[in-house]
């Protein structure tokens, strides 16, 4: 086909694009991903029995804010890295600040107790399952967000995949908080964080070869 014919054809099928289109698409991915994670959680794990009481407590919201902030960093980075030559730097700095803040408080708290208590805080009741559960809950959204990225224009596939993974992991971890009754910051700081970052690593590994367009 000749190039001028192609241009005619492309201009002929033009449809308007509203501002903020990318943000809206990723918001839709988050909504669908959160819903999928919630359904899986309800069917597979159930919510914590004391959810009503816990929702009045500070730690419940602390946990939710932490994982939500990580999801936000992932959203921001995905939205930037979905564009040619987009930079996820500011989002990365924001994400690292969230990690440092939560991690710092968790370390200070953990240092204030005896070694035995520290170990109990760290292991809680469910340390061996937490990270894996978050990873599993995040998979539907990870698939969705990578699929969305592929239809956009990421020029740094590994970084974009990582961002999509942290985004999905953060949303999944927030949903997982409805099931998990752990309250120690040390626990959340280690196992939740591992779940979210693990999802990022999976996203990066897939993104590296899948995000071509």
């Amino acid at each position, binding site marked *: 086909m000749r190039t001028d014919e192609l241009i005619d054809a492309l201009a002929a099928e033009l449809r*308007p694009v509203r501002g903020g289109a990318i943000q809206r698409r990723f918001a839709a991915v988050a909504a669908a991903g959160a819903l999928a994670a919630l359904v899986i959680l309800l069917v597979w794990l159930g919510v914590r029995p004391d959810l009503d009481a816990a929702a009045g407590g500070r730690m419940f919201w602390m946990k939710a804010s932490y994982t939500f902030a990580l999801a936000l960093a992932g959203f921001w980075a995905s939205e930037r890295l979905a564009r040619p030559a987009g930079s996820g730097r500011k989002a990365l700095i924001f994400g690292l600040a969230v990690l440092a803040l939560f991690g710092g408080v968790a370390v200070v708290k953990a240092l204030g107790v005896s070694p035995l208590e520290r170990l109990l805080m760290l292991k809680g009741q469910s340390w061996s399952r937490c990270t894996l559960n978050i990873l599993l809950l995040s998979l539907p959204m990870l698939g969705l967000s990578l699929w969305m990225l592929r239809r956009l224009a990421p020029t740094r596939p590994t970084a974009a995949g990582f961002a999509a993974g942290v985004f999905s992991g953060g949303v999944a971890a927030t949903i997982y908080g409805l099931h998990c009754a752990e309250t120690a910051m040390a626990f959340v700081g280690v196992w939740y964080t591992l779940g979210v970052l693990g999802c990022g690593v999976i996203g990066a590994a897939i993104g590296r070869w899948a995000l071509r367009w």
Partner: protein
Amino acid sequence: MTDTEARLKALMLRGLDGDAAAYHVLLSLLNGRLRVYFARRMGDAPGDVEDLVQETLMAVHTRRATYDRAQPFTAWAFAVARYKLIDHWRRRRVRMAVPLDDYVEVLASTDPEPGAAMDLDRLLDTLPARQSALVRDVKIEGLSLAEAGARAGVSEGAAKVALHRALKTLTERMRGRADR
């Protein structure tokens, strides 16, 4: 330079709002600039320039939502071009370049080699039904794009774009096969 940016950006913004005439002007201007950009970087294979220009225009079009209205337009467009160029080189390192369109026409010719027609059928069957019908209608039966589009129930423009995509896919598959 900044004049060019201001002009292209204004056209792009109007295009994003649905102004097809402005968008047409934009793509035509980009066409010329992309040609120069690729020609400079493709001294060894000038034949691929056309291909790259078209691929970049298609990508600019289908992925135009990724343009951030607050950012410079030229930087965005040439980041797309650069990505397509790198992608092209990456493929060339491992695969022999194959000109677009040729395979289908060669295979479709009523030439003696009996395997070729079967080959083509098999290849076409791997495409979505609508695309393979378009390729058959236009490239084999010789219908015009408007006729083939009418047969498939789409506009001529849509048929043109769909056909272009189908041929790209076929070329990719033929390349893949040549590797094996």
